[in-house]
C-alpha cells in the first residue's frame, strides 16, 4: 500500500492506468464502494490532480446533456415553457388581453353595473357633503401650467384643462379630479396611493410618471405610462379589484367613453354579444385597447411644447390646434376634414402651422384674428 502515497508523477503508468480505470468506472456509475473509497483517498492525497479529474467530470456531464438537445426536444421544451408562462400569474398576460377578452366580461358584469354605479354615486355624494373645500386650477385654451401639489407631486396641465383637489389631499388620501390632459410625476409614497379621477376612469399610481388625456369633447380617455406602475379601473367599478388593468412602462390604454360610438369596435363586437335591449347594447361598446412598446414621447411631448401628429385627420388636428392656440377653425368643405397628417410641431406660431398645412395638402386659408377658414384650392 505504500506505493499509493507517492506523488502522482512518480507513480508510473501502471498506477495511473488503475486510477484512470477507477475514475471512468466512477463516471459510468459502475464503481464499487471499496474502489470509490480508495479513489477518494487517493485524490485527497493528490490534490493537484483534482482540477483535471473535475474538468473531465464536467465534460462528461455536459456531453450527456448535449446528447439530449435535439431540435424536436428543444421545441417540446419551448412549448412547455410557453404553457407555463401562460398559465402562471404573470402580469404580461393580463395586459395583453384584447377586446375579445374584455367584451364578454364587460357584458357579464353589466347587470351588476347599474347597482354598483348607484351605490358609488351615493357614497360619492355623501363624502362631498362633508365640510370640504376644494382647490381648483384651470388652464385656458392656448396655455399650459405646471403645478406642484402639497405632497411634492408635479403636474403639467395642458391647455383647456382642470384639476381639482380637496383640503384633505395628502392627509388621508391623495385624490385629484381631472378634466382635460395632464402629465403626472407622482411623489413616491407607497402608503398613500395617488388616485386620479376622470369622468369615467380612475387611475391609481404608486410613485410613477404618466399622462392622462380626458377631454370631454373627445371620445376616448387615454392613459400612457412612462415609468413605474399604474392601475386603471372604470369609476363605476372602483372597488372591484378584478376590473383593474395594470399598465407597465411604455404601455398605453385607450378607453372608449360610453356615450361615444366607435364603429370599428362595435362591428367587431356584435357577433359575440348576448341579446340585450338597445339601450344596454349602447353601453356595452365601452372597451379598452392596450398598446405596448409605444414611444411615450409621442403622448407626453406636449408638456415641453412639442406636439406629435401621427396620421391624424385634419378634423382631429383642428381640435388640437384650437386648444393649443386658442383659435377657432372653420371648414369650407367637409372633404378637407378627412385629410391625414403626420409630423411634429414645436414652438411655431399658429400662422406657421396653418401655412405648413396649406402647403402640404394644397389648401387655401384665411386668418382673421382668432378665426381661421380652410378651403379647397381653386384650380
Amino acid at each position, binding site marked *: 500500500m505504500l506505493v499509493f502515497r507517492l506523488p502522482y508523477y512518480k507513480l508510473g503508468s501502471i498506477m495511473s492506468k488503475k486510477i*484512470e*480505470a477507477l475514475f*471512468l468506472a*466512477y463516471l*459510468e456509475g*459502475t464503481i464499487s464502494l471499496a474502489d*470509490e*473509497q480508495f*479513489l*477518494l483517498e487517493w*485524490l485527497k492525497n493528490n490534490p493537484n490532480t*483534482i*482540477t*483535471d*479529474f*473535475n*474538468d*473531465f*467530470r*464536467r*465534460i*462528461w*456531464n*455536459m*456531453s*450527456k*446533456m*448535449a*446528447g*439530449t*438537445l435535439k431540435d424536436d426536444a*428543444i421545441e417540446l*421544451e*419551448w412549448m*412547455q*415553457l*410557453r404553457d*407555463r*408562462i401562460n398559465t*402562471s400569474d*404573470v*402580469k*404580461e398576460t393580463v395586459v395583453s388581453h384584447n377586446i375579445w377578452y374584455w367584451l364578454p366580461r364587460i357584458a357579464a358584469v353589466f347587470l351588476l353595473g347599474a347597482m354598483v354605479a348607484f351605490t358609488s354615486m351615493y357614497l360619492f355624494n355623501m363624502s362631498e357633503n362633508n365640510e370640504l373645500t376644494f382647490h381648483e386650477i384651470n388652464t385656458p385654451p392656448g396655455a399650459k401650467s405646471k403645478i406642484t401639489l402639497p405632497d411634492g407631486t408635479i403636474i403639467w396641465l395642458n391647455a383647456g384643462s382642470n384639476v381639482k383637489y380637496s383640503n384633505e389631499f395628502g392627509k388621508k388620501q391623495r385624490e385629484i379630479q381631472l378634466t382635460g390632459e395632464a402629465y403626472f410625476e407622482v411623489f413616491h409614497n407607497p402608503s398613500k396611493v395617488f388616485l386620479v379621477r376622470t369622468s369615467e376612469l380612475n387611475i391609481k399610481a404608486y410613485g410613477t410618471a404618466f399622462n392622462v388625456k380626458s377631454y370631454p369633447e373627445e371620445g376616448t380617455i387615454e392613459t400612457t405610462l412612462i415609468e413605474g406602475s399604474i392601475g386603471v379601473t372604470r369609476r363605476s367599478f372602483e372597488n372591484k379589484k378584478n376590473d383593474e388593468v395594470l399598465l*407597465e*412602462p*411604455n*404601455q*398605453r390604454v*385607450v378607453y372608449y367613453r360610453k356615450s361615444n360610438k366607435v364603429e*370599428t369596435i362595435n362591428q*367587431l363586437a356584435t357577433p359575440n354579444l348576448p341579446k340585450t335591449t338597445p339601450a344596454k347594447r349602447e353601453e356595452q361598446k365601452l372597451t379598452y*385597447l392596450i*398598446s*405596448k*412598446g*409605444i*414611444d411615450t414621447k*409621442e403622448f407626453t411631448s406636449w408638456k415641453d411644447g412639442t406636439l406629435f401628429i*401621427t*396620421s391624424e385627420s385634419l378634423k382631429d388636428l383642428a381640435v388640437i390646434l384650437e386648444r393649443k392656440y386658442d383659435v377657432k377653425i372653420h371648414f369650407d368643405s367637409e372633404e378637407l376634414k378627412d385629410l391625414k397628417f403626420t409630423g411634429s410641431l414645436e414652438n411655431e406660431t399658429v400662422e406657421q402651422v396653418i401655412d405648413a398645412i396649406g402647403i402640404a395638402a394644397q389648401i387655401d386659408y384665411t386668418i382673421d384674428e382668432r378665426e381661421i377658414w380652410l378651403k379647397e384650392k381653386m384650380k
Partner: protein
Amino acid sequence: MWLTGLYGGGKEKMGIEEFQKIFLELYPDLCVYASSFVIDVASSKDIVQDVFTTFWIENDKLINKKLIKPYLFKSVKHKALNYKKREKRKSGLDELFSSFTEELANSENETVEAFLSYSNLQSDLEMAIQELPEQRQLIFRMSRFEEMKHKEIAKELNISPKTVETQIYRTLKFLKAKLKHHL
C-alpha cells in the same frame, strides 16, 4: 384595432416572438452550462426553465439588450450553485468534486464578457466532438448520447473494454484542451 397599427411602432417591449427567438437560440448553451454544475440532466433543464420564466416576467427591467445573454448565464450559474446544495444521494467523491466546482465558480470573474463566452458552449462542444477520429467519436457518442456502458460498447464494436476506456479517456483529455476557456 386600427389603433395598434398606429401606435405599435417605436420601442418594443419584448413580445412572445422575440422571447421565443432568445429561447431557441440560448436554451442548448444554457442547459450545457447548467450541467457543468448539476449532474442530473432533468434538474439542469428545470433550472433553465425557471430562469426563462423569471426572465419573461422581468425582461422589461433589462433595458440594454446586450445584457440579455450574460444575464441568463449568470442566473443559471447562481441557480445551479444553489440547487447543488439541495442535491441528495451524494457519495464522498461527488461531494469532493461538487465543492471543488463550487469553489472554482465562486472565484470566477463574473464579467459580461466571461458570461458572453458561454453562448457558443454547445456548438463548441459539438464541433470538438466532430473533430475526433471516426472510431473514437463513435465510442464517445455511444457512451454519452446513447448512455451505453463501456462493456456494451465493447461488445457492439467487437473490441476490448480496455480499448473503450482508453479511447474515452483520451477523448476527455482532448475535449478538456479544446474547451479550456469554458471550464
